[in-house]
């Protein structure tokens, strides 16, 4: 599949074309400077001047809360009605880390059983990524997933270059979409391709990764959650779960019935394993009462269990859990210390 060049002046036309494929979702800067993906924005409101949004795009596939089905109690039983399928989505401006998060969720939600809600939205969505030229110091996507050099999860990746974008179709679907609007795209010249390579190289160089992730699965087995390492690690945590709520690759959810006694709905919503109630069971037994144990759970899930189960680390290096943590807990620092930690046996 070949890279094409989209002149900046054609971006609006292309986006307009894309709108016919579904609801366009793109980053918009709000009055107070807050940037978020919003559905159906005016072209003028779309911003390309952002490092990344606070909220990853996973919310469009696994919403904060969604109705699994509506129900109504009737004589001797109940009626269940599933929500109607939604419009397909075209998401523009997705950073590589967020696109990669979808890749993780794709795996998480199609195991022995498949999540129909996620899968349906995902199947119908078109993901257009935008290369990240200036990663935040906390970013480590290249280190953990090699995303700068091997992007995944998106259908098309745009590299911003002089005068426009280099559009790299990453999937057949992406290729087809570019093919559909041939008129807008041009063949790239060598200069542009060179600029793109330089840009990638510079971005890769801007990131630092201090952890050898391949060592982690063994280490997690070696140092269980009951280790004093984790107890100390958890002490500065406020158990808010911002790390998992903002994570592009977190899948966990809770289910709750909302009902007036007669009719209602079964709703699922995001859940965080950092919440002390996450694993608490009916009857009050709590398998992970300590914050450190919950840290262990989260990190072992992402860096040891997911690779074993889903053949992929469930972390995309977006850095959100470092940046937005009220305590600025640094996942890489933790993992580095973890790998270096030697348990003193009494």
């Amino acid at each position, binding site marked *: 599949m070949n890279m094409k060049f989209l002149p900046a002046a054609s971006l609006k036309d292309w986006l307009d074309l894309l709108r016919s494929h579904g609801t366009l979702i793109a980053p918009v800067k709000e009055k107070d400077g807050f940037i978020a993906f919003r559905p159906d924005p005016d072209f003028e409101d779309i911003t390309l001047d952002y490092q990344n949004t606070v909220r990853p795009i996973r919310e469009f596939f696994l919403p904060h809360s969604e109705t699994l089905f509506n129900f109504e109690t009737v004589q001797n039983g109940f009626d269940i009605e599933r929500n109607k399928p939604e419009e397909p989505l075209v998401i523009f401006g997705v950073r590589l880390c967020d696109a990669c998060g979808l890749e993780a969720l794709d795996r998480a939600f199609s195991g022995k059983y498949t999540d129909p809600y996620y899968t349906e939205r995902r199947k119908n969505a078109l993901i257009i990524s935008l290369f990240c030229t200036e990663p935040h110091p906390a970013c480590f996507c290249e280190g953990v997933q090699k995303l700068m050099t091997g992007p995944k999860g998106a259908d098309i990746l745009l590299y911003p270059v002089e005068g426009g974008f280099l559009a790299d179709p990453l999937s057949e679907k992406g290729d087809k979409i570019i093919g559909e609007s041939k008129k807008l795209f041009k063949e790239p010249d060598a200069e542009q391709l060179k600029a793109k390579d330089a840009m990638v190289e510079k971005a890769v160089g801007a990131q630092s990764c201090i952890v050898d992730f391949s060592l982690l699965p063994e280490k997690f087995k070696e140092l269980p959650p009951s280790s004093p390492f984790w107890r100390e690690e958890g002490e500065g945590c406020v158990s808010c779960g911002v790390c998992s709520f903002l994570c592009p690759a977190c899948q966990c959810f809770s289910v709750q019935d909302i009902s007036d006694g007669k009719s209602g709905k079964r709703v699922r919503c995001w859940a965080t394993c950092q919440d002390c109630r996450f694993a608490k069971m009916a009857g009050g037994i709590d398998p992970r*009462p300590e914050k450190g144990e919950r840290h262990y759970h989260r990190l072992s899930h992402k860096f040891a269990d997911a690779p074993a189960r889903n053949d992929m680390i469930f972390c995309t290096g977006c850095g959100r859990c470092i940046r937005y943590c009220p305590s600025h807990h640094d996942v890489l620092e933790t993992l580095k210390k973890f790998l270096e930690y030697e348990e003193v046996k009494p």
Partner: protein
Amino acid sequence: MPRIGVFICHCGINIEKTVDTAKVAEAARSFPGVVFAADYKYMCSDPGQNMILDAIREYNLDRIVVGACSPSLHEPTFQACVAKADLNPYFFEMANLREQVSWVTHDREMATEKAIQAVRMAVAKAGKSEPLASQSLPITKKALVIGGGISGIQAALDIAEAGFPVILVEREPSIGGRMAQLDKTFPTLDCSACILTPKMVEAARNPNITIHTYAEVENVAGFIGNFEVTIRKKARSIDMSKCTGCGVCYEKCPVKVPNKFEEGTGERKAIYVPFPQAVPNKPVIDREVCLHFTKGKCGICAKMCPAEAVVYNQEDEVITEKVGAIIVATGFDLFDTKRYEEYAGGAHPDMITSLQFERLINASGPTQGKLRRPSDGKEPETIVFIQCVGSRDDKMGRPYCSRICCMYTAKQTILVREKFPNARIFVFFMDIRTAGKNYEEFCRRAIEDYNAEYIRGRVSKIYPSGDKLIVEGSDTILGRPVEIAADLVVLAAGAEARADAKDLARMLGIQTDQYNFFSEAHAKLRPVETMTGGIFLAGACQFPRDIPDCVASASASAAKALALFGKPELASLPTVAKVDESRCSGCMACLSVCPYSAVTMEEVKNKSGGIREVARVNPGVCQGCGACAAACNAGVIDLLGYTNEQIACQVDAALL
């Protein structure tokens, strides 16, 4: 799911008239948890209650909702009914479809809609109800009677005779109250003192009765069966154990002031007994006027007292008593006739109140029973009685009838006639109300045999002219103005609540009505109880009453107290606060707001072995106000019977 049965009462036509009860029952059938719904003419009747019992059996119901009158009327009835079917009484809920729907809404459609909503809310609450149970509490079998008038004395005697101790608190130096001030009593014309004094003496002698005169209740804590009262015994400046009541002290005392007992018609000394038959018949020093206290000199009484009983440096004594029941018998005040400015600017020596009249005509009063004009001591030839002064008068904020004035005015005309066979006696009246045994006959006698001239009409003006008072009024029967030059005008002042009744109500936690009379729990069915358990009303503190009514209500309240004392123990309130200790963080918010100190902090062990403090409620002390439940941010302390969840469900149901 709970299995809820719903029963909608027609209340004859009271509800049915504006609420389509069948439609309400029909709607109820679709509410979550409802498995049976029906409507019936009188749910509270035996057949109605049997209908509930049958349905419980047939449909295996475990919650019952009745839509009928106000729960304040029949909630206990239906709670007892479901208890018969072995259901916890708190599995019963009531929807108020009469007082709050059918009687206040005329539009049948809207009323039906509101009724459906009310039933929906009751069903929602019932669905979340839990079985509640009482705890056994001890009862202090001792009563406190506040007020030593005829009502208080009677109540104290009744309780004492049944064998239980009574504390009788009277704020004046003697018991006796209003009745002691009266000359004769209607309709028999017995001498008031002759029938009251023996009762006073009996009360004083009864070993079960402790009388604290010149004393006031200062604080009341606790609850039914377990009150703790604080009584301040004001310093009498007399050693009661030494005083023999010889009376030398007040004979010799140089200070004279108006006597409150004589309604200002006579005088007393600074050291005094208020009236000769006083119980206890021992004096008290009025420190406000006594020269020893005001100027630091005199001391004659102490010098003269053969028993050395005068103790100037005596201090107030504050005692606490534990009692199980309280009878409030604080009586009434007289309407302040000065507020009628059109009556001689509110005051004139020859215009007296009916109670002053009693003192002036009483043989032991300041004039030894010789009725004379206060201004010049002349025998009155023309006497005008004016009824309804401060009664049945909206302008004065006293729209109610004081009930005693018609009768005592008739009595007073007879008393006058007996002294002055030739005097002219006029009575201005609005209506004559003589409902009572032999009352009407008595009044007719005053008019027919004693020739009191009754004029129907209001007096619009009284003004002095020469040595007379001109009474201007109108005879509404003859339809002409009337003008009488009177020597003496007697105003039949109405009765009103004690000026400090409100303060006492607050102290006791009982309610007052708009005139500050104490409110009974139910106007018809619980006339001597208050809404607060263990506190009963006797006499005129509740509403104006004559002596036989006072005595009857006093005995009735005594019977209520005795009924309480007859129980081996008391069942505590089931609707009390409860703490989920596992979730309590020990912030003590509940403890801070509890008015009964029912919350304490207790140490418990954490799951991890640590010690933490949590709140705990003493269900015997808790009175179920729920202030704690609203103060607890974590929702850890909740009020049974009105749980956060129940109220939330009611809110939800209200808005469906």
